């Protein structure tokens, strides 16, 4: 099977060359995206079959001579490969239609397959060099895609920030691997797994992995690049970056921390729990205030990454205390949410792309009333909004419910940090879920409901069939995984077994396909039955009420308390919708100021409401850092203009210092 993945990676590289050759021709779009869709479906199948089968390894004489290239396909890689295949197949299908509107396809077509190839290679790499190579390839290809519309200054800035953070993330991962490899240079994952690091070094590796994978995934405070870069890319790439690349980053974290390190002490779990909870709330609050639809979705990705990290933190906490059942439940919940997020976030980005194509804008204040112009896109978006808001019967609720069950599982852990942090995370998750619902009521209500706020929105047309196919497919999958959570939980069983040594009980044998995480008396959930009840009673009510009552229906102008407003400008906007929440949560990651600029009496200019919002993390962490780097660069600037003699002198001095250090070390 692993050779199939290798073949897929090779074919992606060939497609990249073909894409470069095709240039602006339409055939390139069909060929590249169609090919990518087929190959992604192949890797979906390979991943699915790899979950249940024993691990496969392969050793190729490539890369660093004395190490070679080690590849391995086990249950964990299999699950993420499946997820990658699914997300990439959907994105490629969507791109066949979406790409027709691309201004410069020649800037996208070569890098898109390379991006996919990089992500594939990360998942099957089994030595540090291959992993690092693939990790950087993934970063670089996606960076090129972010810059595909490089003339927009905002995109150039996004690309710059992304490149810095990607380099930083790669460096942190590299340092983690170096520490794990040790002086003997055991760069294969096999050797790292076998080596038992002293606690200090293990802690160091954990921190490096958290920083490296966390910044790639979008963990606060390392998330700043994500809401800039994800919206800047073309929509199918945004879907891949948000829906899939963040999951590949999670894979990196799980591989290093759960598998290679084999568990971490409780303080590390507490750290993950703190960061996860904060990430969830900060992310969703920023999403609630965002005006650009794609930026909103990117911030919401930050939130979901937080939720997944909370699940992983719980798993680490339970594992550190030898509580296997809880660890399996929390780990399964986290991976379930990762799959769900891939499904609904890709769907939402497809919808944002369809809206962008139809109206030419990502600004929700310019939209409105799209539910009538784009009915199918709107229906699929509604499903996505409900799923991401964790509403039953969609899949987002199923994974959130499992996480809550994990929180409630074992209150009597011995460590105080965990005793306080686990319930606090429960509260933060609940807060994030409620705020997410508010956020997506705002998105859907402002962009798709109401009256159109611009000519573009009023004249929008329904998306093409490729887009609709991709969207409806993912909406259907979101509903199905929500209705049958047991299927996913059972699918994750072998993954949890391979990583943790335990798994959740088999769900599909339960009566009525009920989800029972631990035992029936502790709590159970049957989405299928509830959905049937709601649909049945709603339908019944509609029929009965229409029969019994008047039954008539008349169209008339809106009532609006007797003051029907003729202009759509009087509708609630996204900004006014978010204002109460902005005011209530002021200080949580941002500071907002609204002030009225009132002209002096006699002055005829109009009054203005000035709304300002500053991002605390950017202002207090990144801005000072940028200033400091700038200062140091100015000081070191003199080094740029020295004679060759001086430079040689520096090289010699560096050599002496290193040799001295080596001598002292020995």
């Amino acid at each position, binding site marked *: 099977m692993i050779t199939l993945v290798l073949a897929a990676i090779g074919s992606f590289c060939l497609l990249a060359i073909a894409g470069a050759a095709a240039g602006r021709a339409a055939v390139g779009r069909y060929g590249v995206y169609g090919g990518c869709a087929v190959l992604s479906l192949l890797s979906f199948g390979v991943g699915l079959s790899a979950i249940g089968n024993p691990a496969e390894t392969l050793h190729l004489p490539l890369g660093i001579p004395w190490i070679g290239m080690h590849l391995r396909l086990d249950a964990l890689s299999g699950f993420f490969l499946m997820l990658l295949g699914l997300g990439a197949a959907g994105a490629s299908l969507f791109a066949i239609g979406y790409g027709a509107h691309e201004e410069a396809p020649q800037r996208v077509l070569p890098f898109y397959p390379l991006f996919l190839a990089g992500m594939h290679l990360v998942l099957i790499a089994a030595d540090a060099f291959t992993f690092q190579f693939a990790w950087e390839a993934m970063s670089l290809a996606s960076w090129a895609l972010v810059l595909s519309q490089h003339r927009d200054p905002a995109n150039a800035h996004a690309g710059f920030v992304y490149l810095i953070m990607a380099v930083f993330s790669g460096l942190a991962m590299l340092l983690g691997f170096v520490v794990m490899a040790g002086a003997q240079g055991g760069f294969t994952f096999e050797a790292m797994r076998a080596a038992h690091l002293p606690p200090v070094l293990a802690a160091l590796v954990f921190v490096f992995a958290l920083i490296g994978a966390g910044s790639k995934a979008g963990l606060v405070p390392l998330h700043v690049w994500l809401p800039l870069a994800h919206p800047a890319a073309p929509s199918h790439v945004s879907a891949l970056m948000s829906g899939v690349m963040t999951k590949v980053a999670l894979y990196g974290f799980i591989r290093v921390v759960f598998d290679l390190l084999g568990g971490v002490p409780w303080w590390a779990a507490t750290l993950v729990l703190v960061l996860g909870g904060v990430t969830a709330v900060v992310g969703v609050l920023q999403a609630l205030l965002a005006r650009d639809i794609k930026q909103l979705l990117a911030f919401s990705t930050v939130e979901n990454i937080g939720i997944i990290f909370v699940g992983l933190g719980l798993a680490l906490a339970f594992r550190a205390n030898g509580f296997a059942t809880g660890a399996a439940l929390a780990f399964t919940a986290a991976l379930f949410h990762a799959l769900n997020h891939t499904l609904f976030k890709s769907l939402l980005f497809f919808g944002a792309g369809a809206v962008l194509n139809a109206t030419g804008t990502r600004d929700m204040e310019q939209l409105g009333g799209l539910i009538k112009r784009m009915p199918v896109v709107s229906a699929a978006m509604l499903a996505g909004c409900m799923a991401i808001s964790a509403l039953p019967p969609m899949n987002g609720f199923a994974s959130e419910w499992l996480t809550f069950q994990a929180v409630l599982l074992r209150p009597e852990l011995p460590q105080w940090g965990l005793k306080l942090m686990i319930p606090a995370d429960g509260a933060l998750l609940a807060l994030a879920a409620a705020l997410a619902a508010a956020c997506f009521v705002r998105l859907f209500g402002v962009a798709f409901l109401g009256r159109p706020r611009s000519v573009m929105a009023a004249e929008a047309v329904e998306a093409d069939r490729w887009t609709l196919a991709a969207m409806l497919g993912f909406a259907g999958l979101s509903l199905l995984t929500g209705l049958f959570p047991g299927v996913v939980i059972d699918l994750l069983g072998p993954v949890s077994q391979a990583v943790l040594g335990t798994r959740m009980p088999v769900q599909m044998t339960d009566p009525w396909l009920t989800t029972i995480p631990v035992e029936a008396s502790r709590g159970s959930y049957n989405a299928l039955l509830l959905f049937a009840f709601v649909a049945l009673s709603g339908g019944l009510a509609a029929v009965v009420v229409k029969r019994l009552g*008047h039954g*008539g229906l008349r*169209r008339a102008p809106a009532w609006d308390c007797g003051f029907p407003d003729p202009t759509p400008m009087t509708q609630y906007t996204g900004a006014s919708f978010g204002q109460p929440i902005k005011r209530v949560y002021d200080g949580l990651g941002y500071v907002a100021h609204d002030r009225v600029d009132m002209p002096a009496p006699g002055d005829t200019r109009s009054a203005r409401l000035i709304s300002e919002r500053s991002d605390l993390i950017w202002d207090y962490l990144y801005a000072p850092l940028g200033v400091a780097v700038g200062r140091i660069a100015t000081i070191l600037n003199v080094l740029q203009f020295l004679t060759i003699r001086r430079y040689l002198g520096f090289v010699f001095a560096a050599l002496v210092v290193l040799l001295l250090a080596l001598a002292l070390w020995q």
Partner: protein
Amino acid sequence: MMADLAIQLVQMTLVLTLAPLLTGLVRKVKARLQRRIGPPLLQPYRDLRRLLGKEVVLAENASWLFSTAPYAIFACTWVAAALVPTFATGLMFSWSGDLIVIAALLGTARFIQALAGMDIGTAFGGIGASREVMIASLAEPAMIMIVFSVALIAGSTQLSVVAEHMLTAHVGLRVSLALALVALLIVALAENARIPADNPATHLELTMVHEAMVLEYSGRHLAMIELGVALKLLLYMSMIACIFFPPGLAGSHAAMPALVLGAAAWLAKLAVAGVALATFEMSIAKMRVFRLPNFVGGALMLGLLGVLLLFVSRGM
């Protein structure tokens, strides 16, 4: 099995038929406290019949979501109400959803309601939806914290198991339960759009929250929404009763006399709760919108405190 099914069906019918009566009771008591005679107890039924007899006047630009929403809201609320033990715990389908699911079903109803409020594109609908989600953003996590407190004590999130635990075991007086009760009362007031969070009888548009969202509804659509509102009030009262005041509740596999006793006890509890709600509403003024976060946020903090206490010590 058959008995459980019978109890389930009886309960679903009972909550549906009694919900307007409870609303009528609250209105009547409020009126009497204001020294008015007030509308008759059965007025809500008449209102529903009147609404059903009228045609729907639908705004010209309303979409399919607007006319589907009332049924979806009603169905979500009714299914949630069907999962709460009212007079007996032996519900046939109680295992299909726990307390978290009940809270989430009500969340789904609110999500659809808020969207329907924004569908016509009027300023009032937007005001209502925006304030509703602001209040819900605090009330929902508060509810989850209450669920956590109760679940940690009873060892289950399943409401029927919780009720039986509260009924049989020696739970005793606990700080965390007291905190959860206060929090739940606040959440119930906020979620049901009662004073001080919202005024169900308001006619001043700028103070409305829930009423602003349903401003454009008429005829049978409005009837479904009104029925849903009444059901939600009954649901919350039954939930408070079955968790915190379970005496009288018939256990699973209870015999007929116990069931009748359970029903009588439930009706008595509802009557007491209705009078208490009316009295409370009469003795307090509605809050400004931006004071509400303190009120509902207080519930969240109390709930969180209760859960923290339980994580620190099981005996609290």
